[in-house]
């Protein structure tokens, strides 16, 4: 027989109609391998259809379901009940939306606002390198790719930006900075000047206090801080 946990979820809620914010407690029993998205779905069916929460792929590839669990930004789709109990040493969890973007309702935030930072970092090759005559594709050795490949795994879940001690204020944020750093390191990008202007601007990487919280919370286990450190050194 599988173990049963008696859970208490204290969820930060917000109703845009009345602008009322409150904390609501849900109690439910769960086996060890239900995920927090499964718990939310169960709350909708069994207790309260009005609770709004975000998700899409539900296997850590889209970064839509980021929430704060006991103050730690995490993906609700890969947080198993058993692991949460072990990680926090409790069966009571405070669930709150991310603070990097305005809340629309309950746990759903305005991703458009969060993504404005990523868009400012121009997440594309601004000016692609011309291919040498006779070549139909660029050659990039596995070793060269390996230098920045980890940064390309970023799914913009904004957990790093949430944990970052600087990004709520003037810093463009770890994930947005990384979007530009990758393209500094990618030989196919020729527009390096414009990228440097952003990275070394008022909202650029020198706002980073090197707490390395970004690396610590990244669900994809990307060492975000190491990329920012490279950029600070100019070691693209």
């Amino acid at each position, binding site marked *: 027989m599988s173990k049963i946990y008696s859970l208490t979820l204290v969820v930060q809620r917000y109703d845009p109609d009345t602008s009322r914010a409150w904390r609501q407690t849900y109690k439910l029993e769960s086996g060890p391998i239900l995920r927090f998205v499964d718990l939310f779905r169960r709350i909708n069916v069994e207790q309260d259809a009005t609770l709004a929460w975000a998700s*899409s792929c539900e296997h850590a590839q889209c970064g839509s379901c980021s929430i704060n669990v006991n103050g730690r930004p995490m993906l609700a789709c890969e947080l198993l009940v058993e692991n949460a109990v072990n990680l926090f040493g409790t069966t009571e969890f405070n669930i709150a939306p991310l603070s990097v973007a305005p809340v629309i309702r309950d746990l759903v935030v305005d991703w458009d606002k969060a993504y404005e930072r990523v868009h400012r970092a121009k997440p594309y090759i601004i000016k692609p390198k011309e291919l040498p005559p006779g070549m139909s594709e660029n050659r990039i050795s596995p070793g060269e790719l390996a230098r920045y490949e980890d940064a390309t795994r970023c799914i913009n879940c904004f957990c790093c930006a949430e944990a970052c001690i600087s990004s709520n204020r003037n810093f463009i944020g770890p994930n947005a900075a990384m979007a530009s750093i990758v393209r500094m390191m990618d030989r196919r990008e020729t527009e390096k000047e414009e990228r440097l202007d952003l990275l070394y601007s008022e909202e650029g990487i020198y706002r980073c206090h090197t707490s390395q919280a970004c690396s610590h919370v990244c669900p994809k286990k990307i060492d975000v801080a190491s990329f920012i450190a490279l950029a600070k050194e100019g070691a693209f």
Partner: protein
Amino acid sequence: MGKKLQIHSALACDVLIIGAGGAGLRAAALIHEQSPDLKILAVTKVAHPQKSHTSTAQGGMAAVDPHDKTDNALYHMFDTWKGGDCSSDQNVVKKIVEGGWEEVQWMERRGIHFSRDEGGSISKRQFGGHTVEFGKGDALRAVFEADRTGKGIMDTTWGEALKGGAEFINSTVVTEILFNEGCCVGAVLFKTKTGEFLTVQARATVLATGGSGQVFRITTNCRNNTGDGLAVILRAGLPLMDPEAVQFHPTGIVGPGILASEALRSEGGILRNKDMEPFMERYAPKMKDLAPRDIVARSIETEIREGRGIMNPDHRIEHVWIDLRHLSAYVHEVKLKEVASFFQTYCNLNSRAQLCPVRPSNHYHMGGIPTNEHGEVQNSAGEIVPGLFAVGECACASFHGFNRLGTNSLLELLVMGRSVGERALSCLKENQAPAPKGAGEATLAQFANYAEAQGKENVGLIRKEMRDMMTRQVGVFRNEQGIQDAIASLTDFKQRAARAAIATKDLRMNQELLERWELDNLLDNAMTIAQGALMRKESRGAHFREDYPDRSDEFHFHTLISMTDFGKISFGKRLIDMSVFAAKGEHYEQFRIMPRKY
């Protein structure tokens, strides 16, 4: 909801793209490159294009490299034709296969991070069903970005559309398509974030709304894949094609439903039932666990149906085990690293020491909105609907026939995305016809109905019951009685749904209201899948009828199905294009109707 629902605003653009996944944004990027001054609106249901389902595709994208002396477009065309159980349209197969490498180059120059070989060239790998010389040997045909090829494609197409200046409307769904004298002139949208309805007038409208996997309980599809575009098409009086062609992967991981790749079995993993019996020996004495996907899926389902499955107590899902414990440390740590990490992440299981739970999982909808080879939508008479295009999983051209080969979906969405972009440009009308009088009234009436409904039914519960029922009765196995019962159940669910009151009154991010609308879409999709499956008294590709286990030439056609009122069905047929065979060119005999035997 108190306030009367109304159309909040009316927008206009040149091209309206509904669904900003890989297919929709490939079309957007093409249009920007060729006509930078056109105004494109790209609408997506998810919170941002990068959150699209395209991002979840793992393994690779098939494309024949013209510099590769061992491979040939004809081989890829053959694999696709045979894999689709001789039900693909050959003109479409030819076009998509021949357009593949150009797309690889397009993305490579725009920043996709393809995995590379030692010389720095794009790496290629083998995938099931892809062969050279018409089945003689394995083909190295799939380019890939590690285990996240879809993400690479999504990031690249999104980046290019953004760079080109497309305007994005995120967290927004299409509720109605607008017509004026038979031409599509735009659509009605509902912005879930702000709770606003709007009409958009467009000179071309592209539907790229993705799949409908949420019809089934166990699925690899994301939460948003509720077949919205297909339901909207049905309500417009247009048909769907081959709705019964639904693919199930044999080994989804219990919990998230995501794929535990075929590699588990090719590396020596053994499927076992609750008595620990290696049951594949009974179903496929020679190939055992390496038997083709559909045979493995049916064997697992049989074990579960006959009481030899295991119930996962947390998810309440029945499954069998895959035993990987005997495999070497190298296989676990290197070859199966990714899948092994899924079992750890989602089941807290160490695949080196513990049995892992798997079962068949819904994966892909081959059927969809019927289009020609340019992505132009057709009505039930086969005529083009001017101004309306469909591309990606929501569309059916048909490239995949009744069974899709791995790595062919990413190929399709790029080649057809580009093609739809080109076609939309060449068909743009000078003078935009106005939206019809009363545009959006049907949508407002529909949503007012939801908002005003009274009763104690629960939308989430009905959705759950429907998904369980469809998995059981119209899933891997189908038979006359089971489908008849399913249709009766769907009718009952539809009636129950009308008695679900919505407690959230304000329209902004009203998840209850959105899910109520999604439930209607899911029920429409489920009904067409069930009706198509009932009509098709044969087995073809992924559509398997226990009572008619063989393919029958009598059914050598595409199903067309229309349903303006729930449950009231009318059927039509579309011929399967066999133009490659008919042209009698080199190797044309490989494009005859043949048995799908491997």
